[in-house]
Each structure stands twice: as C-alpha cells, then as structure tokens.
C-alpha cells in the first residue's frame, strides 16, 4: 500500500523552487552547502534557508565541469561545477551564499573553482585530518566559530544561542525520526522500500526543515499503522544488499536502478547521502564549536584518514549496520577519481572477507556506457548471494 505522505513530499519538492524564489524576494537568503561536516544547524539558526548541493547523474554536466576544474576530479565535483556553470538547476539558481567544507580536498577545490569562475560568495570550513586528536578537535571548534562569524556577517545578526538550541532540537528530531523510519525499510514484509526512504532522506536536503519534520512524523505514523512491529529478519532468498562507498546524490539512479532491476533488495547503506550522516550525531554543547564537534565525532568520512585499521570506526560502523540490517552482500560503490573511497576499496573488501561477507566493487561514473556491464556483474552477484543465503537456510532447516 503506498505511503500517502511520500506523495505529498514529492509534490512539495516540485513546488519548492518557486517557493524559494518567493522567500528570497521577501528578503530571505539561501545557503547552499556541500561537504561532509558542515554543521547545518548553525546556518539554520541564523535565519538562512539551508539546501544541500548534492547533484549527480548527468554526464554532460560532468564534462562541462571538467572544463573548469579538470577531467581528473571526481565526477560528483565535476558535475557540481558544471551545474554552477550552466546555472539551470532550480535549486542552485536560488543560492545566495555557498558553504563548503574541507573534509575532502576535492570539495575544497570545487569551492575555489566556483568562487573563481562563477563569482559566488563562498565560505569554507576547515576540517582537521587528525580529527581524533584533541588538538584537531580544538582547531575544528575554532574553525566552526569562524564559520559562524562569516555567516553572521552575511546575515547581519549575531548568532542567538537560544535559536541555535532550537535548531539543534529540530535537527535532532529529524535524525531520530529518520532512524525510526529507516528500520521499516529493512523489515520483513516491509511496507516501504529502501529507495523510498533514500528519496525521503534526500528530500530533507531541500525542504523547509520544520515542514520536513512534520512530514517525517506523518510518514512514521502511517508506517506504524501499516506495520505494527517491524522485525528485521532474513526472508528466504531476497538477496539483501548493503550499499557502501562514494555518495549517490540526487539525480544519480544508475546503480540503484540496476540493483533493483536484477532482483536485489537494498536493505541498508553507509553512504553520505543516505542514513549515515544522520547517525550518532550527539551535540553536547550549544555553541558553534559544540555543534561542529558533534558532526566530527560521528562515523568519520573516508576522506579523513585514520591510521589504525583495528580501531577504525568507519569499518566498525559498517559491520554494525550490516548486522543490524541483516545484509547478505555489500556493493562497494566508488565514483571515478573519488580517492577517499577508491583507495580503501581493496582494504574494505579484505576486511569484509574475513567476516565472510561477499563484496562487489563497482567503480563507475555518470556515463551510461557501462550500464550493461554493470548489469551483468550485479545480476551475477545478486544471484550468488541468493544462492548462498538459500544454502545457509537449508543448513539451518
């Protein structure tokens, strides 16, 4: 049975660009942000409208962006640059200020390219590579103060800590509700799919936050009405797939559609446009530094190097999520020239192999030329994990 609120959300997304235009006409400003540790609560608390710039899937824009950056940048960054070059995306058109972070060096360079060629007002938040050192955290706290100061300058008001507190509470509620909804997609006899939840998560990048929260509550209520007690368990030969690796932004549906078309059921992810950034975000102090540290202390993004394999929290989290969602195989997705994830592909495969978890690495870009090849490989992989699951079930019987 379709979830009615999802329909409402789709409609609201269609209306949103026009709405943003009106809000801007009435004096409000839109901050477009991209990166992996941008503390959005600060942007919101200052009265800006935050929207996430995470767009992909268009090979033509990749080519356009590559002319300004280079053909050796990740396809995601190239497309972002291409989007600014063409200025036709209805959301991008509405941005007044851009906020980037330096988690990934390529994101940092994208900020420079967009600032240089398209004369955008860009704020950049520095991110420590030694993020687990006390000194690194202190540095990040100061960067967050500076980030807030630069935004205050543009907002023309000082950051009100009471408003920041409200903002944190709102975002915390969004994260908590998303987590609850996410459980339903992985459940037995699920009433919502991972793809629908994935879209729902990404809708939050663009919609008004308060409205988004109430839509999430409505979605959750509907889900609870449809499925009283969602239980995550393996059901025969479903081919339960977990997606890991480089982000999959709005507009990029190639991998997801192939997986579902070959009969795989996606039940979880740890990608940075999926559920991962919403997990384990604990803000202990209401201040720019406090909020920022909450972000930094989550599961680290792969662009932040961690030098001890045994205690790597990214891999620990991956294992935890695989267990929680009872995944039977991992598709490790790497975008062309996405070094943070590509450099770790073999290592991740080796680590998962020790836990006897099958992994398929998919290295791809936005062009459609590898579609058939990917389809063949994914079909074989899904088939393989189904057979593996069936034989495991037989043993249990």
């Amino acid at each position, binding site marked *: 049975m379709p979830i009615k609120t999802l329909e409402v959300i789709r409609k609201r997304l269609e209306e949103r660009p026009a709405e943003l235009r009106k809000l801007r006409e009435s004096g409000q400003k839109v901050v477009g942000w991209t990166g992996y540790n941008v503390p959005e609560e600060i942007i919101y608390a200052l009265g800006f409208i935050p929207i996430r710039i995470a767009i992909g899937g268009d090979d033509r824009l990749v080519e356009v962006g590559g002319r300004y950056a280079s053909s*050796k940048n990740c396809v995601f960054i190239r497309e972002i640059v291409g989007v600014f070059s063409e200025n036709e995306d209805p959301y991008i058109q509405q941005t007044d200020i851009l906020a980037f972070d330096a988690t990934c060096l*390529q994101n940092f360079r994208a900020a420079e*390219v967009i600032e240089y060629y398209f004369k955008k007002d860009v704020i950049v938040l520095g991110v420590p590579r030694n993020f687990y050192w006390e000194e690194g955290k202190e540095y990040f706290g100061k960067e967050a103060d500076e980030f807030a100061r630069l935004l205050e300058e543009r907002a023309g008001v000082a950051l009100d800590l009471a408003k920041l507190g409200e903002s944190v509470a709102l975002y915390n509620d969004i994260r908590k509700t998303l987590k609850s909804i996410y459980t339903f997609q992985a459940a037995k006899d699920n009433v919502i799919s991972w793809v629908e939840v994935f879209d729902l998560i990404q809708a939050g990048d663009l919609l008004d936050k308060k409205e988004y929260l109430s839509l999430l509550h409505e979605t959750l209520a509907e889900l609870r009405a449809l499925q009283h007690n969602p239980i995550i368990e393996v059901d025969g030969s479903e081919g339960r797939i977990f997606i890991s690796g480089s982000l999959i932004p709005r507009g990029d549906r190639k991998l997801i559609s192939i997986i579902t078309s070959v009969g795989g059921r996606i039940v979880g992810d740890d990608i940075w446009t999926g559920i991962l950034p919403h997990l384990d975000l604990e803000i202990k102090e209401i201040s720019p530094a406090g909020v920022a540290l909450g972000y930094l202390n989550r599961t680290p993004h792969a662009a932040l190097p961690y030098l001890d394999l045994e205690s790597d929290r990214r891999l620990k989290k991956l294992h935890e999520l695989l267990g929680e969602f009872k995944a039977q195989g991992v598709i490790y997705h790497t975008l062309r020239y996405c070094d943070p994830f590509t450099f770790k592909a073999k290592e991740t495969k080796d680590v998962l192999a020790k836990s006897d978890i099958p992994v398929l690495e998919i290295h791809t870009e936005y062009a459609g030329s590898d579609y058939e090849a990917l389809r063949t490989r994914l079909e074989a992989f899904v088939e393989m994990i189904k057979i593996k699951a069936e034989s495991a079930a037989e043993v249990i019987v």
Partner: protein
Amino acid sequence: MVKTDLYEYPPELREEFEATEAIQFRDGSSATAADVWHFMTEIAPKRYPFAYTQKKYAGVRLSRDIHLPSAIKNHYLLLTMNDRITRSRENGAPVIFVQGGQSVDPYYAAGGIALRPASVGLWARGRHEGLGLNEEVVRQHKQKEKAYHAISFEACQTAGYENIQEGGLPIDMVAPFTCLRCSDISYGVEAHRHGPNKAVKLMNIDYPMRHQADKTWAVEYFAQNLRRLTSEIGKLAGREVTDADLSKEIRLHNEGRRLAIETAELWWSADLPPTNGVDRRSLYQMGGMEVHGDPSASLTVLRESHAYIKERVNKGIKAEGVVDKPIRLFVCGSCVFPNDFRIEEAGAIIVGQDNHWSDISTLVEEDGDPYQNLAHAILSYPYEQSVEVRAAWTIEQLKKSRADGVLFLYQWGCNTQSAIARMLCDTIKRDTGIPTMIIEQHEGGSEQSEQLLNRVNAFIEML
C-alpha cells in the same frame, strides 16, 4: 642496453675536479673530491650502469656539464643514497618518509632523516645493483604495480607503499605534511595500515587550509602537529628534542634557502644560461637541503656551486649544449617536469618551477618560538594559498626569471593540482599576457611520451 656502451667522464678532467672542495656530511665525515671521482669513474659505472646510459633523452642520465663540479657531486650523492642512508640508519638515525615540496627542518632537528618520495625511490633503487637502463625501468614499473594492486589503480602518490610494505625498505616512519598540494598523500599514509610491515609508524602532519597563515588557531594547530612530530621522531632516535634543537635547525636550513634564492637570482640575471636545465633544478633544490638525505652535504655542494655560477655569470660563460637565446619556460604543477634534454634540443630551457621553489623560497623567522615561526612559514607557502595569491607569487617568479611561457604539468591521478591548473593559468594570462599550456602526464619511466613532448615542442615553436 649494452653495458659496455657507457658514458665515461673524460680522464683529463680528473685533476681539475680533484682540486675542488670536499663534501661535508652531517655526521662529521667527508668525501674528498678524489673520493667522489673514484666512485663516479670506477665504482658507480659497475654498480649503477643505468646512470651512465648514452641514451640522449634518458631522464636519469648524468649531466654532461662536466666542468661544473656540483653536477658530478650531485650525482655522487644520488648514487650513494643507499650506502649513506643505510649507514646512518644503522647508526641510529630514524628514516622518515615525507612529501615533496615541504621543508624538513623539524625532522632533522629531532635526529631523523627526511626523505621525499623521489629520494625514497633513489634509496630503493640503490639496493639493486648492476641494472642497465631498461632493467631499472622495468624494476620501477613492477614496484609501482604492487602499490596499485594493494591500494588503487587511480593512485598517483602511494606514500612509498611499494618500497616500505612490499620492498622491505627499512623506513621507520611515514609522516608527510598533508597539504592541499597532493590529493593522494594522506590516503597513501593510511594505506600502510593494512600492509605487512607493522613496525612502521604512521602520522599525518595536518596542514590546515583556507587563509591558514592568517588564522592564529591554524598556526597553533600546525605548531602542535610539529611538536608531536619531533617528539615521535625523538623517541625513535632515543633523544629529547628541545626548542633550541629546532631553532638551530631552522637557522641551518635558512642558510640553504637563502643561498638557493641568491643562486636563483644570479642564474636568472644572466644573459646566457650558466647551466643547463637539469643542473639548474638540482642547484635550486639543494636549497631545500632534503634531496640527498643529508642537509650538510647538500649545503656544501650548493655553497661551492654558488661560487661557480657567480663566476660563469660574471664572465658570461654559457652552459654546454644550451642555445644562445633559448625560449625561457617556467613550469608549474606537481611532481612532473618535461624532459630537459628534449626541451633544450628544441631551443628552450626551463628556468624555474613553482613546485619545491615555493617552500625553498619561504624563509623562517629565527627569533621567538621556533614551532610557531616554522608553522607560520610553512602555512605561508605560496603553493598552498588561494589561486589569486599563488598566481601573484608565480607572476613574481615569472618576472624574475624572465619567462616567455608557462607550462602547467600534472600527473594523471593528481586531483588537486589538476583542479587548480586552469584557474592559475587563466590568472597568469589575465595579468601578464604570458602564454600558458596545461599538460597531463600519463606515464612515468625514463623517457616521456611522444605526445607530451610534441605538445611541449609545439608550445616552444609558438613562443
């Protein structure tokens, strides 16, 4: 290569060469010019025949400007890398893998030896004796393949993985600056965590970005990184590192940096190029005092060379093999430069590069807290600034070096230099009208691809 067909230094040069200065090493020992001559004419041709190749365009071949003693001494230091580093390490100096284009004062202050990727490669190369040019190229490719296999085929910089994890090279620590310059280095460091060599210590010296030198907290953070670095190296070396140690090292390295700046200014002022491009590059780089894995050795050779360059410039002596009025090229970008032999054959010469020169030409304040001073200087490297600031500095170098054109080169897989290439070139063209060209290098090896060289030659012709 037929091993008998090797280059030989003219014996009649011996007397003149043996009258030149000795190389002084950091441990107090020295190599007289006679020692160097003996090694370069008797020993090295047998141990390292590839360097004596007669192949005209081979990047590893010895400089033919034989009257410039530093050229021979530079090759001596490069070919004795394995002997010297192995010995120093056995005597207790930990060896640390660093990045190219960064200063190394804190590593030496703590009693270590800092080697950048190229120098680590030289050390590894020195352990394989008797190889001709082709065999050496095959060996290098095989090593790199190992790293690609263990990390990623899209990797450009593998932080020495192939040598340290898979080649048995006894590096004690991998601790480069993680600056914006290199897209791969910090992931390369991280990759070591899954290698078999668990003894190697890993550390990223975290370089903040975006107006970093103007932010007190960024300078403070980088200074803390440097303190941790010297403390860790000190532990490996079995000593406590004091502020005075670092101050002393900064003064020493400033001497090299100043000397390199003076040498460059002399070189650039000359009507006729006083050296060929290969020797010019070696001279400037000696100011960074890291290329040979022994700052004192680099400094003594640079001091002596400075006097030679001065004499050549004063007397209007032109380097052998260079045309009278060559087209002057300035090279921007990372870790790759066009083949000097081919460039010179086409009637041009490379007069400078931003890579390495950015750190060598950045002096460090000597009074006050050495960690703060060093951190501030390092965060001020022009190469690591916004495009407008980097371009303004590059334009200053173009003017000083009287460059006619700019080549921006980067390696395939270099994400951060490739991304700034067009912005930098557009700014240079906008502000000076100097023509620029961007080229990507696809393969390494001893000779460059025809395609790359054809493009460079077309650029030279256009100029």
